[in-house]
C-alpha cells in the first residue's frame, strides 16, 4: 500500500469537529492577465460530498488543479489535510497525490492498455504487490463499478459512460482519501448518469472518502451532494447544503439554480451595440 506523507496524520479529539480535508484561504489565481479566482476562501468538509458549481470558465476545474498541485496559487493558501500544497516540493507533492484520485472529464484512460491494465497501472507503479494480488485488487475495483466483465476490453471498445466508470475504478485503486470528479456526468445518457451519481455517493460512504464534484448537472449533483459551493466571477456566490443554496436570494445563484438564460450572467457576449451592427431600425439602415 502507498506510503503516507509525513505529518499528514492528525490527532483527533472526539469533542472537536473534524478538520476540513481541503481548504482555500484567500486564494488568487489567474492565467496571464485574466483572474480566475480572486481571494477565494472555502472549506471541503471531511467525509462529505462537496459539489463545486458555477458558469463555464468560472474556475471550477482550476480549483481541482490547485488542490492536486498541477497549478500553484499566486496568493493565499491551498491546504490539503492541513498542509499547504503550494509549499510542497516535488517529492511531497507526489506523496500527497497518492492520497488523491482524480476522474477527468474525458476519463483519460491510457488508450494503449486494456481496461484491466488501466486500473492496475497505479498499483504496479506504486506498490510491490504480486501480480496475483494486483489481479484481485483490480477485479475488486472493477466489480465495484460493475465492469469486472469488461476487463479485457480496450478503451476504444467501451462507451463514454463505461470509460468514466473504468477511470473511477482506476482513481480508487490506491484507496485514496480524496477523490475529485471533473464533470463526471457530462455527455452521459440517463442510465449511465444515474449509475455514476449512485456510484459516487456509495463509494464516498462505503470507503470513507472525501469527494469533490465539479458539475453542471443541477438535479443529479444536488441529489448526492452534502455541501454545495457556487463559484461566480472569481469568488464564492453561495455555499451551504443543497437546500440552503436553492433558497438563496442572490440574483446570480437564482439564475444558475433556475437555469435562466439571462441575468447577472449575460446571454450576449460583450461587444458593440446592436444599433452599431445593424443600424437604427426606425430610421432605416444608416
Amino acid at each position, binding site marked *: 500500500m502507498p506510503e503516507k506523507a509525513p505529518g499528514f496524520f492528525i490527532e483527533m479529539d472526539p469533542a472537536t469537529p473534524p478538520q476540513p480535508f481541503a481548504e482555500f484561504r484567500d486564494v488568487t489565481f489567474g492565467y496571464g492577465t485574466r483572474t480566475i479566482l480572486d481571494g477565494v476562501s472555502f472549506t471541503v468538509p471531511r467525509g462529505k460530498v462537496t459539489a463545486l458549481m458555477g458558469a463555464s470558465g468560472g474556475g471550477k476545474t482550476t480549483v481541482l488543479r490547485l488542490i*492536486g498541485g498541477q497549478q500553484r496559487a499566486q496568493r493565499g493558501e491551498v491546504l490539503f489535510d492541513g498542509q499547504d500544497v503550494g509549499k510542497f516540493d516535488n517529492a511531497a507533492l507526489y506523496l500527497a*497525490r497518492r492520497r*488523491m484520485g482524480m476522474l*477527468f472529464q474525458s476519463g*483519460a484512460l491510457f488508450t494503449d492498455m486494456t481496461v484491466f491494465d488501466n486500473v492496475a497501472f*497505479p498499483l504496479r507503479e506504486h506498490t510491490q504487490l504480486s501480480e496475483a494480488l494486483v489481479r484481485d485488487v483490480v477485479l475488486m475495483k472493477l466489480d465495484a463499478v460493475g465492469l469486472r466483465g469488461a476487463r479485457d476490453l480496450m478503451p476504444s471498445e467501451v462507451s463514454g459512460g463505461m470509460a468514466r466508470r473504468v477511470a473511477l475504478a*482506476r482513481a480508487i485503486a490506491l484507496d485514496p482519501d480524496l477523490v475529485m470528479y471533473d464533470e463526471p456526468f457530462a455527455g452521459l445518457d440517463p442510465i449511465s448518469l444515474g449509475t455514476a451519481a449512485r456510484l459516487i455517493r456509495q463509494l464516498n460512504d462505503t470507503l470513507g472518502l472525501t469527494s469533490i464534484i465539479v458539475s453542471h448537472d443541477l438535479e443529479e449533483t444536488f441529489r448526492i451532494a452534502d455541501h454545495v459551493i457556487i463559484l461566480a466571477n472569481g469568488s464564492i456566490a453561495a455555499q451551504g447544503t443543497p437546500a440552503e443554496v436553492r433558497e438563496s436570494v442572490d440574483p446570480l445563484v437564482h439564475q444558475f439554480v433556475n437555469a435562466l438564460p439571462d441575468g447577472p450572467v449575460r446571454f450576449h457576449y460583450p461587444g458593440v451595440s446592436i444599433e452599431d451592427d445593424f443600424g437604427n431600425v426606425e430610421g432605416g439602415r444608416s
Partner: protein
Amino acid sequence: MSWWKPADVGFAVRSHLANLGYGAKLFMRLLGPGAQIMRRFSLVRDQIHFLGNYSLAIIGVSGLFVGFVLGLQMYYALQRYGSSEALGLLVTLSLVRELGPVVAALLFTGRAGTSLTAEIGLMKADEQLSAMEMMAVDPVQRILAPRFWAGVITMPLLAAVFSAVGIMGGYVVGVLMLGVDPGAFWGQMQGGVDVWRDVGNGVIKSIVFGFTVTFIALLQGYAAQPTPEGVSRATTRTVVTASLAVLGLDFLLTAMMFSI
C-alpha cells in the same frame, strides 16, 4: 518595419530563451533517469520494437534502392577511368560514412519521429499525461524517457541495416547486372574500409542523430498545444526541425571527423 521595435525584439529573444531553457530542462530530465530506466528495461524494449521493427521495411527498401542508384552512378563515373573494380569500396564508404546514418535518420524522422510527436501530443490533449501526474507518476520518466532511450538505441541499428542492404543493392547492380568482378568488389571493400575510422564515424553520427531526432520529436509532442491544430503543427515542426538538425549536424560531425 514594425518588427524592429526594441520591445518586439526583446520579447522574441526572451521567448526563444525561455523555449531553449524548457528544452534543456527536458533534455536533462530525460538523461537523468537513464540508469533507472534500464532497471525497467521492458518499457524500453517495447519501444525499440515499436520504433525499430516497424521502421525496418521502409529502411530496408530505401537502403536497397539507394544501393542500386549508387551502384549505377559510381560505375558510370569509375568506368571512365578504368577503375570499376573500386565500385564496392566507393559504395560502401558512401553508405557507411555518410548516406547510411543521414538517410536512415531522415527516414526515422518521418516514420518514427512523427509518430512519437503525435502520440505524446494526443496523450496530452486527452489529459492522459495529466492523469498520470495526478497518479503521482512522472510522465517524463514513465512515457518520454523509455521512448527517448529506445530511439537512441534503435537509430544506429537502423543505420547499420540501411548500409548493409545498400551494399547488397550495389552488389546486385554492379556485379550481377554490370559485370564487375565479384572478387574485386568485396576485396577492395575489405582492404579499403577501416573499422574505426569509417564504420566508427558512421556509428557515432547515427548515435548523435538518434539523440537529436528522438529528443526533438518528444519535445515537440510534450510542448504541443493540446488541440488537433496544435498536434498537427507539432508534427510538422518535428519533421522540419529534425531534418535540418540532422543535415546541419552531419556537416559539423564530418568536418570534425576529417580534422582528427
